[in-house]
């Protein structure tokens, strides 16, 4: 009986240790690519995933898809929807071993909305820039599991759209999120960054069209580097 109790305690201890190890692994993930241009230091990743990548990262809206910002009330009633046919993002992996970097650009083009029927239509933008970059950290999707996919924790992201309503003039809606978590789908040919209904909060004192929240949905194809994995 004594041995059974000791065994149970040991099992609990081992489980706790594994959990801690797994959470440590998820706290930091390598960014890998087979692109040979920028990988310093030259640290090998999982077979087929090349080396730890450091350097420029850029992405464009996947062909045939749109970036959609849907403003809603807390209960989900849609107050306005902005659809953009173009969106580009740029940044830099500053430390590929820890998966840290920054986003220096997120732009939107070809936007439209039924709420913005004035001559000026609607324009959308973000505050990501070289001067005010958004910090980003990559982690693996499943803590401790290296399948090439990951999550990017993007800090203090803010954006807005300005809508020419026509009869009511221009309305600007501003949004913020302390941590946005787009997913990274690793691939040799088409690595993707997917923002799947990321919830943003509406800044206070804005027009009703801005809603109380907005969800941002977009799928980006990473163009530089040509292959990308998180592990």
């Amino acid at each position, binding site marked *: 009986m004594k041995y059974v109790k000791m065994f149970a305690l040991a099992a609990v201890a081992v489980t706790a240790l594994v959990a801690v190890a797994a959470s440590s692994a998820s706290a930091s993930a390598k960014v890998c690519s087979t692109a040979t241009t920028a990988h310093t230091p030259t640290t090998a990743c999982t077979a087929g995933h090349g080396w730890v990548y450091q350097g420029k990262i850029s992405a464009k809206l996947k062909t045939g898809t749109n970036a959609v910002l849907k403003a809603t009330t807390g209960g989900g009633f849609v*107050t306005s929807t902005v659809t953009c046919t173009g969106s580009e993002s740029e940044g830099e992996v500053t430390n590929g071993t820890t998966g840290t970097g920054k986003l220096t650009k997120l732009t939107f083009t070809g936007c439209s909305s*039924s709420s913005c029927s004035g001559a000026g239509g609607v324009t959308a933008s973000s505050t990501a820039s070289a001067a005010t970059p958004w910090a980003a950290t990559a982690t693996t999707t499943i803590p401790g599991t290296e399948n090439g996919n990951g999550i990017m924790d993007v800090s203090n992201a803010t954006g807005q759209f300005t809508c020419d*309503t026509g*009869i*009511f003039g221009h309305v600007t809606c501003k949004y913020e999120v302390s941590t946005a978590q787009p997913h990274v789908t690793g691939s040799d040919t088409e690595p993707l960054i997917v923002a799947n209904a990321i919830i943003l909060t509406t800044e206070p004192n804005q*027009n009703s069209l801005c*809603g109380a929240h907005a969800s941002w949905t977009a799928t980006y194809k990473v163009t530089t580097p040509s292959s990308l994995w998180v592990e």
Partner: protein
Amino acid sequence: MKQRQFVIFLAAMFALAMFAGGCGGDAESSSDSSSEARALTKAEFLKRGNALCDKALAAQASVINKAIAEGESQSSGASGEENAEAIVADDLLEVDRKMVQELSELALPTSDERAAEKIIEQFEADLEEAEGDPGKLFSGGAFKKAEAVAIDYGLRGCRV
């Protein structure tokens, strides 16, 4: 025989208890629906308050979107904007009056009644200002002061 009488007595008591319970339930539900007299917990107050603000925000957006859709063919410009704002100001004020009225009818949370009361008072004061200056309804600043205290209190849906 005595045992049989006892069983009948028990059954009668049970039926009586069920009947009395049913009457009690009716009385309780009717008082619930007739007023908000029962004090709320803060969580209940926030839930109901957020729902009211949410409903108002949806109604406001509907009024504006409807006007935009209907006004597409009209010419814009400064005078056009003023005209359009005047047309929908009444509808927006009606939505806001209803929201403030319903908020003020909510029973206040027992834990911090005064704080909740201040929020309602601020909504009433902001509404009064908006009635005098309907232009505020379009700039998003109509309930600027009330929003600040409401969000701080936990009424995060009150971005109206």
